[in-house]
């Protein structure tokens, strides 16, 4: 919005700036140039290269020699059962990450959105997981899930819910849920902090009035609170979706996509194709699928947001 407003800045001001000998119309480009050059060199050029690679057969062992193969890589991956499983796993992973992180973040935010003694400490401690490095998280999670000595298995056994043999990360059934729990543990601080600040914007007198009128908690939440925080929830969901499509580290460090591909998302598949199978063309095509999915999600969310805005006017 701010972008639009400023493009339509009053003419007089623009004219004055042009007349000023110190702020010529090239000034913004001078400020912009270093960063733009940087982003073009380290993001734009590599992206263009990947797009090109996705239409070629190229080996990691000899990356300067590529053979143009047109859409062959795309035809190959979409005809591949393993890739379809990868897409399904990615879908499950992304949906669970988004629902889990936004849902838990909202619960925690509602919990902390009250005045109580020690609230500052609670807020600080709750956001600690966000600051923990992924590699350290992967290590402690793997150790906690250790079949014999891991605290998680000891606990599950004690309450009678133990997994046979305790092999959680080696089980095609339990590995993905374990990774999801770990990922959501790292994400909920961010979502809860952002939602907590959105909750500050909820008018207190409105919720109080609703409660006075005898409205239930749930009704008050839906009619007042939810309406205020809805845009933030939508934005967070979008951000979490895009980030989850590209998230690599935790899965790679905890399972490398295994066992039997049960935790293999698009980026894991892409990395394995590039560095284990040495097929840079296939890897690039897989990456492009991820990028296109993200683009569709972004475009879709804009449409939904616009629709919601129209509905609000009616």
């Amino acid at each position, binding site marked *: 919005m701010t972008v639009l407003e400023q493009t339509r800045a009053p003419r007089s001001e623009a004219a004055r700036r042009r007349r000023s000998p110190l702020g010529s119309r090239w000034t913004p480009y001078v400020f912009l140039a270093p960063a733009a050059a940087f982003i073009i060199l*380290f993001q734009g050029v590599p992206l263009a290269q990947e797009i090109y690679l996705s239409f070629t057969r190229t080996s990691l062992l000899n990356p300067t020699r590529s053979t143009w193969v047109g859409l062959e890589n795309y035809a190959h991956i979409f005809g591949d059962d393993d890739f379809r499983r990868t897409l399904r796993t990615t879908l499950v992973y992304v949906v669970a990450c988004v629902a889990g992180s936004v849902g838990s973040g909202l619960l925690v935010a509602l919990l902390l959105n009250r005045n109580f003694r020690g609230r500052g400490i609670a807020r600080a401690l709750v*956001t600690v997981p966000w600051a923990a490095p992924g590699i350290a998280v992967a290590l402690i999670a793997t150790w906690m899930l250790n079949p014999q000595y891991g605290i998680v298995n000891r606990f599950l056994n004690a309450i009678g819910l133990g997994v046979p043999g305790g092999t959680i990360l080696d089980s095609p059934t339990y590995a993905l849920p374990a990774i999801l729990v770990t990922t959501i543990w790292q994400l909920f601080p961010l979502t809860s902090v952002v939602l907590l600040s959105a909750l500050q914007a909820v008018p207190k007198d409105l919720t109080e009035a609703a409660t006075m009128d005898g409205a239930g908690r749930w009704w008050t939440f839906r009619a007042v609170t939810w309406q205020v925080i809805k845009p933030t929830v939508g934005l967070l969901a979008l951000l979490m979706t895009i980030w989850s499509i590209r998230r690599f580290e935790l899965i790679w460090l905890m399972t490398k996509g295994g066992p039997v591909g049960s935790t293999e998302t698009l980026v894991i598949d892409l990395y394995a194709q590039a560095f284990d199978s040495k097929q840079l063309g296939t890897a690039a095509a897989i990456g492009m699928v991820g990028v296109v999915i993200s683009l569709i999600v*972004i475009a879709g969310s804009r449409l939904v947001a616009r629709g919601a805005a129209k509905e609000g006017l009616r």
Partner: protein
Amino acid sequence: MNRLHIGLTLRIVAVLAVMGIAVFPLYWMFVTALSSDADLFASEARLWPDFSQFGVFVDALAEGETVRWLRNSLVIAVGTTAMSIGLGIPLGYALSRFSFRGKVLTTVVLLLTQMLPEALMVVPLFSLFNRFDLLDSLIGLILANSAFVLPIVALILKGAIDGIPRELEEAGRVDGARPLTMLVRINVPLIAPSIAAAAVIAFFHAWNEFVFAVTFIYAPETQPASVGIASFIGEVGTPVQTVMAVAFMFTLPAVAFYLFAQKYVVAGMTAGAVKG
């Protein structure tokens, strides 16, 4: 009255539970590092640290490896922070204060970089760095990390400059100050908290970064801690206690720094997410 008490109790229990869930894995890292072999592999888990085992931290630090890892991580993180802030301030200023052709495009491109997976960009960056002799170099990692964190930094700073009244600059303009002077003298001091937030986010990003580091670095001398610690995975020679001690020493600065700068980071994250 009674119902109110139950509700309050439930709330306290829930808050404590969430705090426990948030902190427990890090606590457990600490406890595991400070466990004797007997406690670690006993049939009953020992739930508190055994401080007589504190030597594990001293030993880990005495071995040159750990210190070198942490030092390399620090160099990368500080370099990335300086680079992304240095480039992000002018970019944020241009986006906030000027109207020019390509402005909307620039903003959209900055947002779209958020969806590019590191795992995808690692191959072309590898060949680019290979050509410029930047593989196995901390400078290469600083450049790659800065490119990935710069868009977020720039958007946070743009939001901050948006919040500063233009009148302050108008006064400077009358005095004949150049745009760069106005940026440095007027805007930068006023957005210092947001610069701090962006700096912390850039620092974390680089301190924690793994994919680029593991692909671009092979010499032990240039390894940052994320890669060094990852080399413990699947390796059986190093005792669990040592692994956890090193991981904890890698985690602690990040968490401590975060808690110290928390107020700024939260403001920055919130502004970034809400405006992004």
